[in-house]
């Protein structure tokens, strides 16, 4: 962690700005641009502040960066981006991407993403990432030049397609199952939480009606008037308090969302292992069949049915020269295949080792972060309860003066 970028450089996403431009089809579009500011971290001895560098990026560029990182480091659980579209909204929240509250929460999410990458021991060293933070022009071209799109395994996109892997690493199988369950449970939690927020909002707001009616009632009372009027004011305060309470709770929801999307990243790593293992097994299978073919040709026995074998039987055998040529080709292929298998095996073992190391790191991070999130949620609830007690105590005092 000593070497990670986050220690050397201050990174913030400080502003968001609405822009209009023309898209790829030359149609006018509106989008939001985010200002990334970076500054070298000063050591204690230096007195002056380093200058701040800044550049603007839009969400699609963040997406490009993340795709690049996912493909280039398949064994790493790559930090997720904040949600593309507002999801899990309740009636007070806007589902509009241009809504200022959504933009603000996204700004925070994007900053969080950059900080996560910058504090990752492997990812922080990536040059493309560094350029993303520091190089305004030509970055897109630079990324595309890496040719990472070619490396991307299109099979990864087919999330639910099953590949019959005979010997997967059991840990990855379990982990994939866990990531599926985690996604499901956090989604459920976020959905219900949104409904809870909606209902709570309703409860608080209806109390505002007391404010008005107490005020009207106090007008016809002599002794009770003052007490009622001031109690009514407290009811208004109570009704208004829910807005801030629920806004704070959205931060908690965002923390949960991050791990909802992290579960996706975790799954991707498991999937990658699955695919590598599948390719390995296919390659081994192919090698075995080639060896068998070779043996059959050499010994003349046919153990496996093949169309070629049948046709040659029906239409006459090949000449010994032809057979020799075939054997030679096969032997070459077998040698190639054995080398490939060896390197694939090595690759596979390396992948498992490195991936598992990052997964352990991720697990610790997840446990720490979620615990912190739960604590802050409990603190929010405590604060809400205390506010409630305060308001009703004030109201009670007003009633006592009636």
């Amino acid at each position, binding site marked *: 962690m000593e070497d990670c970028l986050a220690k050397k450089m201050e990174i913030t996403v400080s502003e968001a700005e609405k822009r209009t431009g023309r898209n790829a089809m030359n149609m006018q579009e509106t989008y939001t641009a985010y200002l990334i500011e970076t500054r070298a971290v000063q050591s204690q001895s230096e007195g002056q502040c380093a200058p701040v560098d800044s550049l603007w990026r839009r969400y699609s560029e963040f997406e490009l960066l993340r795709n690049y990182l996912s493909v280039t480091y398949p064994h790493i659980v790559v930090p997720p981006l904040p949600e593309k579209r507002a999801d899990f909204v309740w009636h007070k929240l806007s589902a509009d991407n241009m809504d200022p509250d959504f933009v603000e929460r996204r700004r925070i999410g994007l900053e969080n993403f950059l900080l996560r990458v910058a504090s990752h021991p492997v990812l922080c060293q990536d040059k493309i990432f560094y350029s993303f933070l520091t190089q305004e022009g030509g970055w897109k071209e630079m990324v595309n030049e890496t040719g990472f799109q070619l490396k991307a395994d299109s099979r990864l996109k087919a999330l639910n397609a099953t590949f019959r892997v005979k010997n997967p690493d059991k840990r990855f199988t379990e982990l994939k199952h*866990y990531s599926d*369950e*985690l996604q499901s*449970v*956090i989604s*459920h*939690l976020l959905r*219900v*939480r949104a*409904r*809870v927020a*909606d*209902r*709570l909002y*309703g*409860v608080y707001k*209806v*109390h505002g*009606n*007391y404010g008005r*009616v107490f005020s*009207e*009632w106090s007008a*016809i009372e002599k*002794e*009770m008037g003052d*007490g009622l009027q001031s*109690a009514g004011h407290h009811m208004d305060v109570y009704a208004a308090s829910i807005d801030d309470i629920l806004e704070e709770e959205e931060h908690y929801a965002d923390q949960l969302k991050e791990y909802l999307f992290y579960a996706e990243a975790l799954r991707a790593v498991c999937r990658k292992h699955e695919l590598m293992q599948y390719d390995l097994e296919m390659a081994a299978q192919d090698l075995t069949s080639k060896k068998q073919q070779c043996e059959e040709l050499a010994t003349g026995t046919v153990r496996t049915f093949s169309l070629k074998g049948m046709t040659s039987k029906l239409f006459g055998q090949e000449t010994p020269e032809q057979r020799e040529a075939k054997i030679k080709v096969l032997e070459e292929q077998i040698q190639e295949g054995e080398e490939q298998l060896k390197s694939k095996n090595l690759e596979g073992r390396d992948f498992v080792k490195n991936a598992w190391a990052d997964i352990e790191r991720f697990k610790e991070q997840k*446990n720490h972060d*979620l*615990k912190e999130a*739960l*604590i802050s*949620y*409990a*603190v929010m*609830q*405590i604060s809400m*309860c*205390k506010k*409630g*007690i305060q308001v*009703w*105590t004030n*109201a*009670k005092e007003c*009633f*006592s003066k*009636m």
Partner: protein
Amino acid sequence: QDLSLPNGTPVDTSSPASSSSLLNRLQLDDDLDGETRDLFVTVDDPKKHVCTMETYITYRVTTKTTRAEFDLPEYSVRRRYQDFDWLRNKLEESQPTHLIPPLPEKFVVKGVVDRFSEEFVETRRKALDKFLKRITDHPVLSFNEHFNVFLTAKDLNAYKKQGMALLSKVGESVKYVTGGYKLRSRPLEFAAIGEYLDTFSLKLGTIDRIAQRIIKEQLEYLVELREYGPVYSTWGGLEVELSEPLEGVSACIGNCCTALEELSEDMTEDFLPVLREYILYSESMKNVLKKRDQVQAEYEAKLEAVALKKEDRPKVPTDVEKCQDRVECFNADLKADMERWQNNKRQDFRQLLMGMADKNIQYYEKCLTAWESIIPLLQDKPETK
């Protein structure tokens, strides 16, 4: 003075009910504390009776008194709602110039409300207890003969039948007959009371609706919370290190659900009924005001009739004099009752609203305790392996 009500029933003048001593008694009643009070009535112990024809609830009515009007110092009788209803009607008949406290609603929609559920019976018991206590506190009504019989008679039905027979002999209608006179204008002070009551019952109606709406919203919130809590538990089942914290949060939310349920129940059982009682009270008072208008209208009409006759001796005939007395008596009784009502209302609402605030404070305190107790659990470092 020969005071008699239009339907011929003589007003008992031997009781301290005449307007002059009324204010004196009011003064005494306002200082009423345990020592000067001489009549205590309580309603409790509801019991279900299953008979061939019907099933019903009776309540025990206990009386403790030192008053001379009662033969014994203590009584304990059982009464059902019908009996309270009968009492109220009797009081309205015999004390038309006074405000009679309201009874809880007579009819309940079968199938919607369970007449025999604990909550309903308890709510009703409290209202009936309040009803009798209000009569007990009233300087005139508490001395009413029917009230006495209600508190003491072993067989109330026999008395009821007796009363009916008597009246049918006399041939008079039981109800207070309105003369059908139209009042030109209500005196300012009574008009003010009327306006006040109109606005007051309107505002109470609004508060009732708001309170009901809040309870509804709270119950909908509760439904969601009940789904929310267990999801944390499910998640805990997937985790190792986070298992306990997540379970803790789940349990915490469960506790908040319980607290919320209690709050809604309390509001339904304690707050709403009292509110509704006062709406009924206002309606009663408005009716008394109308009766007063009738009495005044009769007087004015008779006075006018006399003026038109142009007699030589401007002697006011006795029945016009009687009307005048009736008006004055009614006005005095009504004003006294209104003042007493206003005072009780202030105390009742003070208590009611403070109670509402209290219930909410208790709800938040329960939730606060739950969340505070979970913080150490969440911060707990796992045992190093």
